[in-house]
């Protein structure tokens, strides 16, 4: 993996964390830097629930122009900040954001 690809992924991770903290009440007590890349977003990790999943779907549409059509796919994608960021990197239109 080249460094520009890795830099882009780092930027996406930062943006994802900022969006999660700004838009999901569950996380407003945290700063973006307190969310680890590999911590589980749902359940025992950060404690997000199904309505938060819906919010993330809307955030992906609004900020990255990515549509999640299959929620089974979403289950894996939404596992961690890292998995979500990698999915965005692979699927966001090049003129996205």
């Amino acid at each position, binding site marked *: 993996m080249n460094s520009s690809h890795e830099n882009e992924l780092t930027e996406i991770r930062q943006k994802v964390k900022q969006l999660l903290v700004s838009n999901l*009440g569950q996380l407003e007590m945290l700063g973006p830097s307190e969310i680890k890349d590999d911590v589980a977003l749902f359940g025992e990790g950060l404690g997000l629930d199904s*309505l938060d999943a819906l*919010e993330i779907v*809307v955030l992906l549409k609004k900020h990255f122009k990515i549509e999640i059509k299959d929620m089974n796919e979403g289950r894996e994608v939404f596992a961690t900040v890292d998995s979500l960021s990698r999915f965005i990197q692979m699927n966001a239109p090049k003129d996205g954001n």
Partner: protein
Amino acid sequence: MKPVFIEGIGIIFTRGRGLNKFEQALKDGWDEPTVSADGRKAYRVPKDALIDYNILKKVRRSDRFSRLAVFAACDAIHDSDLDIADLDQSSIGIIIATAFGPHATIFKVLDDIIDYGEKKVSPTTFANSIHNAAASYVASALGCTGPVMTTTQFYFSFQQALLLASSWLNEGRLKKVLVGIVDECSPAMEYICEEKLSVAHNGKMSPLSCLKRPKFVPGEGSAFFLVSQDSRKKKYGAFTEIDITGNSHGWTDVDLSIIGTNAMGGSEEVYKDILNKGIPVAAYSSIYGGFMTGNAFECAAAALMLKNQTQYASPNVDRTELWNVADKSKERELNQIQCISHNNTQKLVFIKMTK
């Protein structure tokens, strides 16, 4: 009307959260409003007044409007020393009065529809844009399962809420009602006030000017009263009369009249009975700002004065040649106080409170 006794009060306003802060503000008098980045003046609730993670974790999806209500409502319960767990939770009703509802959130939903399309609107933001959302969050945070209602009648929403609370208690349907108001400032609201109303650019309101459009500064906040018809639980006196007919000039057997400011004014003619009798008057809206449901703040001030048997100086002393202005803080026998609000057609409504 059967007396409705006040067991607890919760309040959040421009100088912070809590009845102690409100009482201190009444003692301290006028202060400068806050100034936004675009130079607009308003009495806004500071951000740090809305940080309490013990409450926020119960209402994590709420917006600012609902949080204002939840904080004040929880504080009213706390102030009463009531442990809700000791009560039948269906025996407490909740009524919230608001003039404009969560309009900042409503505008956010509309803006998002315009900017991104309806499929990209947050479902949580949409849910928060419903007028009754704040009342639902209050019920959820407190674990109350009784009736929940939001009343809105522009100028006189709080008076309607109080009448409804009295009615619920009279019916014996409930033991207690948590009744209060919430309204908020937003850039849109402040813009409308600037364009349509008479905003005081020096920050000083003139509620006693008897002008149709008195100078005012927009305000926001929330105030809640836990009320019942059980006189043994009384902590701050009682609501004893409410007159919303618009045909009255007020009661003349009161010790003090508190004039509200919602940007509308009453003329000397509508206040003739108060003026002729020389009844002391005060106006405290310079402390928390002017807004349609601000009459609840006047009632909170009256409740404190009846409890403490102390008159707090009116921070506005304009038109002293006309009014018998209560311009000094002093210990004084106070048995009855009336709180007055008015609309744009010179109609006055009254809430009488008794020791």
